[in-house]
């Protein structure tokens, strides 16, 4: 069954909860190799989305909904993650403009646009210890699973597992982008906060897809 605007709103609203629950955890990760604000930033942004959620739920264009989320993130999150996630949602929305419901393939279209947006803006390479390290394998897994005929929930489950592996893969790596790069070798041994929030978002998508039978 294709995903409806209602399902998108469920996605967003679960993301809001998950980020809120992980606010301190993400901030703690950022304390170790950053400036102790990633959870606070993300939560500020998703709480701003929460305020707009009723209004977004009345819209019919899923692309427009995601673009509005992107603008909200851009104007409320700040820091590095604001422009990055903001651009991701903007690009995903742009890729889906006009859609009133989503097929599994749309997930890949949107996800790849989002990732491309992040890379365009942040210019991080795989292995630089950023959110890209979680999202790149996630999109690859999503693509592979969908090509193999999986439904959305199954494919997102694979993407989530891949994101988790990617996230954990940031631990032994020295950061080369963002604030953590200033620490040089001292960044080794710590999990990247942005990769962690990315994993949390992908996992949330998988969970809701499963719940709504997408």
């Amino acid at each position: 069954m294709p995903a409806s605007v209602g399902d998108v709103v469920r996605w967003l609203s679960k993301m809001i909860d998950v980020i809120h629950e992980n606010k301190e955890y993400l901030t703690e990760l950022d304390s170790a190799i950053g400036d102790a604000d990633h959870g606070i930033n993300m939560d500020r942004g998703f709480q701003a989305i929460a305020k707009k959620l009723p209004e977004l739920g009345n819209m019919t264009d899923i692309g427009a909904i995601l673009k509005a989320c992107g603008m909200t993130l851009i104007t409320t999150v700040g820091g590095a993650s604001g422009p990055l996630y903001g651009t991701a949602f903007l690009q995903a929305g742009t890729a889906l403009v006009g859609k009133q419901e989503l097929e599994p393939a749309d997930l890949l279209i949107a996800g790849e646009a989002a990732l491309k947006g992040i890379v365009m803006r942040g210019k991080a390479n795989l292995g630089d210890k950023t959110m890209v390290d979680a999202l790149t394998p996630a999109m690859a897994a999503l693509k592979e699973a969908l090509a193999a005929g999986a439904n959305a929930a199954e494919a997102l489950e694979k993407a989530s597992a891949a994101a988790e592996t990617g996230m954990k893969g940031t631990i032994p790596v020295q950061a080369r982008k963002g604030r953590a790069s200033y620490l040089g070798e001292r960044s080794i041994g710590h999990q990247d906060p942005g990769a962690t929030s990315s994993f949390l978002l992908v996992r949330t998508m998988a969970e809701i897809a499963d719940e709504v039978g997408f």
Partner: protein
Amino acid sequence: MKKLINKPEDVVKEELEGMVLAYPSMVKVSLEPKFVYRADAPVQGKVALISGGGSGHEPMHGGFVGKGMLDAACTGEVFTSPTPDQMLEAAKKVNGGAGILYIVKNYTGDVMNFEMAADLARSEGMKVQNILIDDDVAVKDSLWTAGRRGVGTTVIAEKITGAGAEKRYDLTKVADLCRRVNANGRSMGLALTSCTVPAAGKPTFELGDDEIEMGIGIHGEPGRTRMKMKSADELTEMLALSIIEDGDYSRTVHEWDEKKGEWVDVTLVNKAFKAGDQVIAFVNGMGGTPAIELQIIYRKLHEVCEKKGLKIARNLIGSYITSLEMQGASITLVRADQEMLELWDAPVKTPGLRWGI
């Protein structure tokens, strides 16, 4: 966490409310979105200087808004870059028709947000240049990192560039001047204690009773290395030599090419200091450092500069670019030519820096 605040989420808003009550002749503030701007903005025919960044570094940047320095400062949450909408609205408010210079400290977040803001402002018909400040020698290489952070040189650049704009330098000249100050500036800092981000509620890191962090930025983040506490003279010498003996530094930055109408990669080189250079010396407290200690540091810095053949032509000593209540200090040296010194001496009247008027 003990702080003289109300709710963590209200810190920045209430600071701005305090500022406009305190300095009505110098600044006004916008709360939605948040920025501080000159009480007499827009100044017609003057290039408008806008900076901004996370809060927690006071008096920078809001305290540097006023005659002879910034036209506007966009305040993010504590240690978090402000957002493009703030920067755009600030530009609209202070635009005097001669263009906008965004002075941007080199942090991934600040750079991305200010680039988006510049694109937005240009789409509204303004001429905009973004100049990066990236002066922190604690960051060694630019290929393996996000490049050097923008720290102490920011204050010097805002003062000198502000004076240039006040003299009605055009946008190209102001941007060149800002780039030149940055190309001649280098900084290095250390921390004796961490600080506590209000919304986080506990110190960003813990330090032992005899440990310090060497090579810190200004966001309460740990530095390049943790080391044993040493005397003020030894630490000052370490900071000063890291700066003075730093070699040529080259990196590629994003700048807007007005002729081509697009962002281009530009390679910039900071030339190492050499004997005979004259410098502006800036000893900065991180927020929780007693003033008496800054004088002790300056005393040694003067000696090291002299030994290395650098002549301190001007100085600035105080807590101007801070990390909340962190104890620690940073040193900035900026090689200055005659024009830069004259602009440095020009009158300035802001809440945080004032002379001549």
